[in-house]
């Protein structure tokens, strides 16, 4: 069993050069894809490094996954979110490789955050889609989430039902799917995160994040990578008040996948 890296052990600053506390985790290579218009790629890479893994930048136009063990599709506005969020990015050459690797026997873990989630739905790796927020405005706030499924590659460190707080920031965050797809998601326990303390955008069934049947592909709208570093995280945490910007509830998403891959 790999050594857990707790939030207290995490360095205060993203010192990318420091030796990771656990060399087995450090051996895990997590690819972070940059599309034109991707914005939170450096943040996702920083989160991977703070969690103890190794972040590998991947370029959308390449066709080589560089032997990474997992992939993150970060947030942002790929192609300006023009047409529909994620609609153009999904045709990137690298996406074919990612779809293959996610569907292959090994079932490579893939995490789509915000725009990355939108890309995954456009690529049909995950069901449903996102439309404009109910109130039609971009919304940035600290958002409560309930972890509904702690068995995916990206949520193993959480407890079932645990409440966490991470930043939410998007304009097209309202999750929609038809009745059948929703029923199937619920029946198969594939809702991974649900909004807690108020649905911010009108998403069906308060859904904030879902997974595929195998649990290796996860997409969510809020941003766990923005709650990983004390001083630069959320103002709140699921386990009560913390200091200003001290909330680091998102870190366990990244530690989870490192542990999952070193099990």
């Amino acid at each position: 069993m790999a050594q857990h890296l707790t939030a207290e052990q995490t360095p205060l600053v993203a010192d990318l050069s420091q030796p990771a506390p656990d060399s087995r985790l450090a051996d895990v290579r997590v690819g972070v894809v940059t599309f034109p218009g991707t914005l939170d790629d450096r943040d996702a890479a920083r989160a991977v490094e703070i969690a103890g893994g190794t972040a590998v930048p991947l370029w959308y136009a390449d066709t080589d996954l560089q032997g990474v063990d997992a992939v993150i599709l970060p947030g942002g506005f790929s192609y300006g979110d023009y047409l529909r969020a994620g609609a153009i990015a999904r045709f990137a050459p690298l996406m074919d490789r990612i779809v293959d690797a996610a569907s292959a026997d090994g079932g490579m873990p893939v995490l789509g955050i915000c725009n990355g989630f939108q890309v995954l739905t456009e690529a049909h790796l995950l069901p449903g889609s996102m439309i404009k927020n109910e109130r039609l405005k971009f919304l940035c706030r600290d958002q409560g989430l309930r972890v509904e499924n702690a068995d995916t590659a990206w949520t193993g460190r959480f407890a079932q039902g645990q409440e966490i707080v991470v930043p939410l920031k998007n304009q097209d965050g309202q999750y929609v799917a038809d009745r059948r797809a929703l029923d199937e998601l619920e029946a198969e326990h594939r809702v991974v995160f649900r909004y807690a303390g108020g649905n911010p955008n009108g998403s069906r069934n308060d859904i904030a994040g879902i997974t595929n049947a195998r649990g290796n592909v996860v997409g969510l709208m809020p941003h766990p990578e923005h709650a990983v570093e004390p001083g630069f995280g959320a103002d709140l945490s699921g386990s009560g008040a913390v200091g200003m910007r001290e909330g680091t509830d998102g870190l366990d998403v990244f530690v989870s996948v490192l542990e999952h891959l070193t099990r």
Partner: protein
Amino acid sequence: MSETHFNLDTIEHAAATPDTELPWAELGLNETEFERIKEILGRRPTAAELAMYSVMWSEHCSYKSSKVHLRQFGEKVTDEMRRNLMVGIGENAGVTDIGDGWAVTFKIESHNHPSYVEPYQGAATGVGGIVRDIISMGARPVAVMDPLRFGAIDHPDTQRVVHGIVAGVGGYGNSLGLPNIGGEVEFDPCYQGNPLVNALAVGVMRHEDIRLATASGTGNRVVLFGARTGGDGIGGASVLASESFDDSKPSKRPAVQVGDPFAEKVLIECCLELFKSSLVEGIQDLGAAGISCATSELASNGDGGMRVNLDDVLLRDPSLTPGEILMSESQERMMAVVTPEKAAAFEAVMAKWDVEYSWIGEVTDTGRLVIDHHGEVIVDVDPRTVAHDGPVYERPYARPESQDALQEAHFTGSPEDAARPSGAELGPALLELMGSPNLCSKEWVTSQYDRYVQGNTAMAMPDDAGVVRVDERSNLGVALSTDSNGRYTRLDPYRGAQLALAQAYRNVATAGARPVAVSDCLNFGSPEDPDVMWQFAEAVRGLADGCQAIGVPVTGGNVSLYNQTGGVAINPTPVVAMMGVFDDVTRRTPSGWREDGQAVYLLGETAAELDGSEWARLRGHLGGTPPRVDLDRERVLADMLVNMSRDGMIDAAHDVAEGGLGATLAEMALRFGVGARIGLGEVAERDGVDLFTLLFSETQGRAVASVPRSEEVRFRDMCTVRNYPFARIGVVDAESGSLDFQGEFAVGLDELRDAHESTLPRHFG
């Protein structure tokens, strides 16, 4: 083809047809200016030359009315002020050394008029423009801010303007991945037909990465890259497409510019890659006056000349005339100078990011800017005469006769008057103030902006300053605040500008950062009105004197004139942006207390200064003289706040500004939802003011801090040693859920929050 066909107005043709009528008046030039152009050239200008001179000699580009005053920013500098200044006024943006080999560049600019015509796109392209200024210095943009001013909150047109502008600032900034870390929102009828959209961007770089807008090295190539050139922003200059110059049918020119934030995001990354590999010798963004500005500035800042072939410019609209191409303000474009050896590497970067580019010319040793079109020379000028030798006006100015009467109309509000509540009325008064359009929570606005992206935001709204980390290893970082008070400045422009400076300075210091640099955006009415010109002259003088007094230089800025509706000018609104430096951003001071039992201290003394205050505004009063400014005292206060923060003597601090001490205490309690017990009797007695005055007067040089019990002795010692007045005015009370002014009145935090947060949603949904 007719003789006067625009495309054929070559320099030869111009020399041969000296008497051709030219539309110089339509292009905004006056007769003297036109004569001067002829004198410079020794002939009449070609249509293309006329286009260039007219845009470059416009108020916006040449600062012809403001130059004589702005000079003071350069003259009133001390060695102390110069110490950290790496690039000063005159370049696209100033650059300040913040230590450890890091440099920071920031600048604030206006996009007022376009944002009234088309609020979303006007605001969006305002953000886009200022960000390109920052990139062109060689920096990676890391944050934006947006001081905004709107008309009356309940005016029907305010809806349109507010929704559009806020969505536009957010839509563009969010898409670029730049955290929005602060700004201002003010509502006042004077901005009804002329909202102010000022946008600030800040960028960081290593010292060695600073780039300048110069074209040097004969034989180096000039490249235009990014978006294609369209008819945007030619607007008033559409005479260039009209029948008098072109017998083909007049083409349509867009009334407004549309921003493409995706193109700009790609342009940012693409430029950073160019800088990293040292692929450009000089670089310039394309903003106002487009190619005219970029070519003439690059060439005149360099050591030679430039030859450009206009046929090589990629066009979005093929019907553009040469003059229009030169004037077009299409967004998301850059111009760079590249050595021939690096051209291939440059092209590879463009290919990687899928950015269109075209080589349009080269650097020459002629000292002339020569532009060809269809194989003929249509421009042949000394670039300095276009870029730097524009007209300079000493506009007449005089103190308006009405100023005395205005200054004598003090806010009197007698104690019996409803305008001056006392006793039990003070609770409702505080609630009314905290729910007023200008002191209410701005969350409705700020929640539409991404403040997290890039992962380096250590502090943002609603605290006193925005704070971003620059160096992820050392936690070195900067704090920024923007401030202005048009009402104060209306009452006394000299003092008003200094008040804006003092507030921005104090905000940065309250957050815990050492103030080091200023940028400013001077929003005024028409310079042709002597009253307005007087306001402008006084404000600049106040700002320059003020900067000298606090020892912080102006590094750049922007002047926006002609802000008026009909004949009525806006309140003069000099927005001051202050930057401060942190050795370690994790030491920043939040603006609210949270630890039960901590002592609450007030720094500074309170005088009866209600003229121009928010309270007076609530009662419909504007008159008298604004609060006094003592910048030496501000220096002491700032120094104390920075040291107290660094040495851990305070846990929270918030400056006292608009709304007075009452607003400060209410905001501190609301920040983390923690109440306090406050006793103001002793301070009122010490300062000789009543409770109403103590709560709502806007005397400067004050801040409130919460101090851990263990630090009280050190805290008091520091104040005593520096001879700064202080008073222990209360205790943080985590249980009470209220702000309890003991023996006087109490307001529940729920009630307070409701008053504070419901105003904007109630008006804007």
